[in-house]
């Protein structure tokens, strides 16, 4: 039976731990991918995602059921991942390969390969950015959240989010240009 997030939360609060698995299943993928882009490390991301769900479960009584569950858990995983990066400076190995099929392409193999290459390039440049810029870019572009949702997830004002994103894009451009220059030299 499919439950809404709020029903699942209610059942958890009533003592039915198993109801939480609905939420883990529903949000696990996005939570893991947010952690992955912030930590740049698959193992650390799995640990952070797991930790985020455990923290969410412990704090369920603080969750406001009138608000969507997604942004709440995104906020928890973002904090957990940023804390992890701060603690371990887990910044070394950029997340490597992209899966083979990038998107349903009506483009053709050449432009699809080119696009894939661009993605790899941008993602690895993104991995060099400071963690809070990576977090903002991940939430905004990879998870496609609105400015307000990003602000909620990061726990910072809307204006600061816009500034972060603006600076993150500028830093990304600089790094991409530097990489292109390196390759050209």
């Amino acid at each position, binding site marked *: 039976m499919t439950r809404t997030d709020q029903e699942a939360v209610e059942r958890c609060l009533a003592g039915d731990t*198993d109801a*939480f698995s609905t939420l883990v299943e529903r949000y696990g993928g996005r939570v893991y991918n947010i952690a992955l882009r912030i930590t740049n490390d698959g193992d650390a991301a799995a640990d952070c995602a797991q930790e985020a769900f455990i923290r969410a479960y412990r704090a369920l009584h603080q969750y406001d059921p009138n608000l969507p569950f997604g942004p709440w858990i995104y906020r928890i995983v973002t904090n957990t991942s940023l804390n992890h990066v701060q603690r371990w400076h887990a910044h070394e190995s950029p997340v490597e390969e992209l899966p083979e099929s990038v998107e349903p392409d009506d483009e053709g193999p050449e432009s699809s390969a080119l696009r894939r290459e661009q993605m790899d390039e941008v993602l690895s440049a993104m991995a060099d950015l400071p963690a809070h810029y990576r977090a903002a870019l991940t939430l905004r572009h*990879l998870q496609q959240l609105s400015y307000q949702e990003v602000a909620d997830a990061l726990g910072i004002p809307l204006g600061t989010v816009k500034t972060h994103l603006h600076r993150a894009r500028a830093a990304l451009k600089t790094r991409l240009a530097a990489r292109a220059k390196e390759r050209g030299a």
Partner: protein
Amino acid sequence: MNDPFVLPDLDPAERDLHRLLAAVPPRPLPFGFRDAVMTRLRGERRVTWEWIVAAVIAIPNLLFLIRQIGVHGQDFAQALANIMTAASAETAGAFFFVDGLTVVALAFVGIASALAAHALFVSSTPRGTVVR
């Protein structure tokens, strides 16, 4: 929200980057992720109960032992001294008297300690296994 290229508040300056990043396919969850989370959660509940039971067993018995030491502290000290004397003099017998309830209380404190040690061990184990 599902269409990668449509965000209502998308700024023209971020359109190109958004088109590119929104098309990045998500990485699949590690195999067994959900089970690992749920195993940890169930473990946590069990551990909570273990702490409660350990406390319920330990607290009254510890209080009783403290009272016993207060009331019969000299007897215990005497018994210990007798044992030490007997051990150092290599004699066969050492007279001491210990109240049966004290022994029972000590045994209960031991059981509570074992439960608490188990709870501590389980909760300090870092993470459930996620097959990667």
